[in-house]
């Protein structure tokens, strides 16, 4: 024990720090069962049981944010997977190493830009006045009048999905390219001797080899079904599209910090957390059953 004194001095404050910033605030979940008033002490708070949860699940605004969150999350995940796998397969076929490297470097540049910058670029590109997308579509004579992309609810989920793919495609591809790089080259040689062309090799060797990676990532993404991203929607939304743009996180922000209904916002957060954690554990269990390595 004496010999470990320095190790203890170095680690105990950090662990206490982590407990303070990650675990102590969990106590705040009690707010969702109270009519919380910040001025009162904990013992003076009025306890209201499940009042806020009942309110939430009968509130059409909240139910709409749940729908929006799940839908945008599904769209982003699906588009994200298909585009990343497709891009990894195509990039893998590029023979020139410098060209491949430059393309890949460009592909994950937007990952490092902030959502503020990215959504700013998106709204510039989609602008009605001289926006590149409208200009291009008009030049190609696909449309006659510029489209108000960000003011029409029917386009919003698609724009969010496209923005997500634009920003994260390259980054999502890295893990697949690493998996492809690990494939035994003799497999390809054997396939060539058997007369397999490019597509057959892709279908019979590359895809099955990265299947475990795909499955693990798919299962992991199940745990994040209520994390549709918050910044994208918050930054791209406006009054005209709020019925389709607002997610659970935006609901929490609106009711919690702007209208000071702390209890309702905490209840919404608790709901999201409980669903998330259960899904992560379920996903972990499914991964174990499927014979894949544990995720947590």
């Amino acid at each position, binding site marked *: *024990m004496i010999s*470990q004194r320095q*190790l*203890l001095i*170095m*680690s105990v404050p*950090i*662990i206490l720090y*982590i407990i303070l*910033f*990650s*675990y102590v*605030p*969990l106590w*705040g*979940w009690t*707010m969702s069962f109270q009519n919380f008033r*910040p001025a009162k002490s904990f013992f003076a708070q009025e306890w209201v049981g499940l009042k806020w949860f009942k309110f939430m699940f009968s509130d059409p605004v909240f139910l709409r944010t749940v729908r929006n969150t799940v839908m945008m999350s599904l769209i982003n995940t699906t588009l994200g997977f298909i585009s990343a796998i497709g*891009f990894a397969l*195509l990039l893998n*076929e*590029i*023979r020139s190493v410098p060209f491949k490297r*430059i*393309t890949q*470097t*460009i*592909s*994950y*540049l937007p990952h490092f*830009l*902030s959502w*503020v*910058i990215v*959504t*700013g*670029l*998106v*709204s*510039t*590109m989609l602008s009605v006045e*001289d926006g*590149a997308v409208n200009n291009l579509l008009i030049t190609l004579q696909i449309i006659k009048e510029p489209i108000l992309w960000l003011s029409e609810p029917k386009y919003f989920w698609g724009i969010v999905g496209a923005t997500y793919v*634009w920003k994260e495609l*390259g980054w999502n591809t890295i*893990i697949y390219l*690493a998996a492809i790089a690990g494939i035994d080259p003799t497999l390809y040689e054997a396939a060539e001797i058997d007369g397999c062309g*490019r597509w057959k090799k892709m279908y019979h060797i590359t895809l099955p080899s990265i299947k475990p990676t795909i499955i693990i990532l798919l299962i992991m993404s199940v745990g994040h079904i209520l994390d549709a991203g918050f*910044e994208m929607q918050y*930054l791209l939304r406006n009054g005209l599209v709020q019925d389709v743009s607002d997610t659970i*996180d935006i609901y*929490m*922000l609106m009711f919690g*910090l702007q209208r000071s209904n*702390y209890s309702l916002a*905490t209840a919404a*957060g608790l709901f*999201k*957390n409980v669903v998330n*954690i259960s899904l992560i554990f379920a996903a972990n269990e499914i991964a174990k059953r499927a014979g894949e390595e544990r995720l947590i």
Partner: protein
Amino acid sequence: MNRFSKENGGFVFNTLNTAFMVLFSVVMLYPFWNTIAVSFNEAVDTIRGGITLFPRKFTLQNYKLVFATGSIPHAFMVSVARTSLNVVTNIFFTAMIAYVLSRQNFVFRKSFTFIIVISMYINAGLIPNYFLMKNLHLLNSFWVYVIPTMVNAFNFLIVRTFLRGIPESFIESVRMDGGGDFTIFLKIILPLSTPALATVGLFVAVGAWNSWFDTLIYASGRVNLHTLQYKLMEFLQSSQAQSRGAGDIGAMGMSDVSNMVTPVSIRAAITVIAAAPIIIVYPFVQRYFVIGMNLGGVKE
């Protein structure tokens, strides 16, 4: 014959694939390139439209005005200050806890590791965290940018994975000379784990530089704590709602037409300033990010 046709098909595929990659790169780069062109173009001329890859009437006026307002240079400094402090504190404390928990004989190794790893999966949420900052008197204080983010569980995993590769004999040699664990940490661990710490530092730097949400919820009440990304966010939100006017900077038109500014031009200039640090260092450091991504993937 068969061989010939296959290679012919390969040629068509390769050409199309290369063309696709070029088109893809254009789609990735164009929005930013265009913004740079607009930021260097005369504001009034930009309104006419048609600026694509290069400025038509080159000017530095947009940048001069952005820097003349005072609030943007100040916000830039706030961002620089928080980013550097975040990087330094994160590297130091993350490396320290990673070293302690890489000691196989440390009594609390398992339980402390468990506490850190589980903290990745739980998040009390917006409101409880807000009240924590409030109770700690961190609201509208510069330290709200630094204190809550000093240790990161994901970075801890990266550094600990790396530390496993440091030979035990190095550590023992310092111990023989009578050095304690803290000496070992300073003299051996910190210098030897530079590659992993550089990766972690870059992740932290990018995250800190790009963050704006903590300003919105914890520090929006004090203008002199606004970060550059937060300023840009405010400006974008107000220039999107055109009806509400152009915001404080956009309204600063001057009598001479060539000196006038518009929200579009100012917005382009601020965007370029906010992205510049990342774009400039990116080509030199991007391989560290990929190393980090692969190290982080190796769990337990």
